[in-house]
């Protein structure tokens, strides 16, 4: 038990150090960091106008009102920005490193290579996007507060944490395919596109598709299930499903990673 605690502490210290390095990199070009937030504002404006257009024609979409849908957007985007900034950018770099043979450098370091590959940097240029998505979240939360079951807050927070874990494990499995294919980047791009299904109330999809996006490509866990749970539209069963899914994905990711490492051959000398 003691070695495990000390190992966790070591990796937390390492992560804080990596965080400080990322932050100092971003602060070298402060204006860049702020202006990169411009695109998310335009994106948010276009999506909110689109939702406004939809709800000017219908009262509900898949049984969800305008503000519930905007709240879903806020939650989904906040989760998306957090996972993009914390590990997605690193997984994309990892794919490139495997392809060019530079992954050796990560293997030679006295740190768990999976940790390094996943959490090496934190992309602070997404600060603007994070503030943007948080603003949508907070404003829409105020509008749907009368529908929120506050007794469900712990479950909501758990599902948010589960969303992050499932996102990470799912992306990690596909990024690890870099050990077998020349360019695994399209797999991550596909997940990015498929995740769009989770930005709208799942009631608009047929039951078979909802099942598929729950158990096989679990993108509904990325934002939809936490939101639906907080709004009282989902029962506690999904907390259990989330736990099982995390366990299953953890095992698969570990197996894929180990098999990939055994297969890896450096392309450099």
């Amino acid at each position, binding site marked *: 038990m003691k070695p495990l605690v000390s190992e966790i502490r070591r990796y937390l210290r390492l992560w804080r150090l990596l965080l400080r390095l990322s932050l100092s990199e971003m602060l070298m070009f402060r204006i*860049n960091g702020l*202006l*990169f937030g*411009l*695109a998310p*504002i*335009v*994106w948010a404006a*276009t999506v909110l*106008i*689109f939702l*406004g*257009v*939809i709800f*000017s*024609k*219908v009262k509900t*979409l*898949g049984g969800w009102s305008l503000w519930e849908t905007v709240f879903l957007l806020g939650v989904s985007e906040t989760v998306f920005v957090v996972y993009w900034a914390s590990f997605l950018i690193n997984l994309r770099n990892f794919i490139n490193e495997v392809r060019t043979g530079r992954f050796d450098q990560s293997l030679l370091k006295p740190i768990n290579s999976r940790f390094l590959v996943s959490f090496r940097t934190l992309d602070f240029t997404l600060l603007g996007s994070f503030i943007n998505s948080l603003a949508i979240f907070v404003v829409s939360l105020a509008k749907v507060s009368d529908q929120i079951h506050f007794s469900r807050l712990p479950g909501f927070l758990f599902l948010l944490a589960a969303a992050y874990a499932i996102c990470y494990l799912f992306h990690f499995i596909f990024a690890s395919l870099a050990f077998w294919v020349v360019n695994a980047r*399209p797999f991550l*791009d*596909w997940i990015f*596109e*498929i995740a*769009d*299904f989770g*930005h*709208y109330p799942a*009631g*608009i*999809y047929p039951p078979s598709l909802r099942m598929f996006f729950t158990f096989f490509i679990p993108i509904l866990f990325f934002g939809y299930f936490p939101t639906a749970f907080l709004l009282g539209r989902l029962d506690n069963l999904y907390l259990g499903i989330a736990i099982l899914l995390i366990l299953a994905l953890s095992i698969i990711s570990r197996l894929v990673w180990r098999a990939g490492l055994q297969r890896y051959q450096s392309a450099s000398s």
Partner: protein
Amino acid sequence: MKKYWTVFKTEFQKSSEYRLEFFGHMIMGLFTFAVMVFVFRAIFQGNPEIAGYTFSSVFTYLVMTKFLHPAIRWNVARLLADEIKEGRLSAYLLKPFGVLRYWFSLFWADRLVDILIRLSLIVAFLVLLPRYFSFPGFGTTLSFGLSLVLALFLNFTFNILLSLFAFWVTDIRLFSTAIDLAVGFFAGALVPLDFLPGILKPASFFLPFQYLLYFPIRVFQGAVGPEQTWVGMLISLGWLVALLILLDYFWRKGIKHYEAIGQ
């Protein structure tokens, strides 16, 4: 002209090599298309017609945007801006050809491969989904083709204009993504412009971006009469001329300002 034709042929061959990547990107686009189909199906459940559209016509519109929007676009703004930023523009300036004509040849070669494949897929839709797609007639097809060519010219000119900011700004990515999103929105990539509320609708019909996507698609759908089609194309041509004048002005200003930093 021969030198630009050579550039065109080389780029065309290069673009034809990565077919698998192209189909990979197309499959990606199908996911967001599928989401939009479900969203609009839910909207039209209680409403047979909205803003003059039925679900069938919206479906056709969405298919056309998914095929055409990537086809008319190319990353020319960032590519040329990077050449300017890194000082590599000097190499082009020393060569015996016009820089903008060179990039124009590259653009057309790259886009032609894309458009040919996407248009063949539209033909496949015409055959497989007659409920949503029907052959619009030769006259309409010709008008659609012409409006598409104008859209390509407009898109290229606008993007080159955007890239010229690199003469004065360190990195155009700071705002080019935001502009790209806004242009896509006002081109009708997300939703037909007829659906837009309030002041957005007249604004979108005033701006030139409708001629990138919305106008060619509506011509294809037969929603624009012959007279309106010609008027639309003339206005599009007018915008093209205006952008070319601006392009010429800012290019001359930019070249005087250019310092070839990095070389």
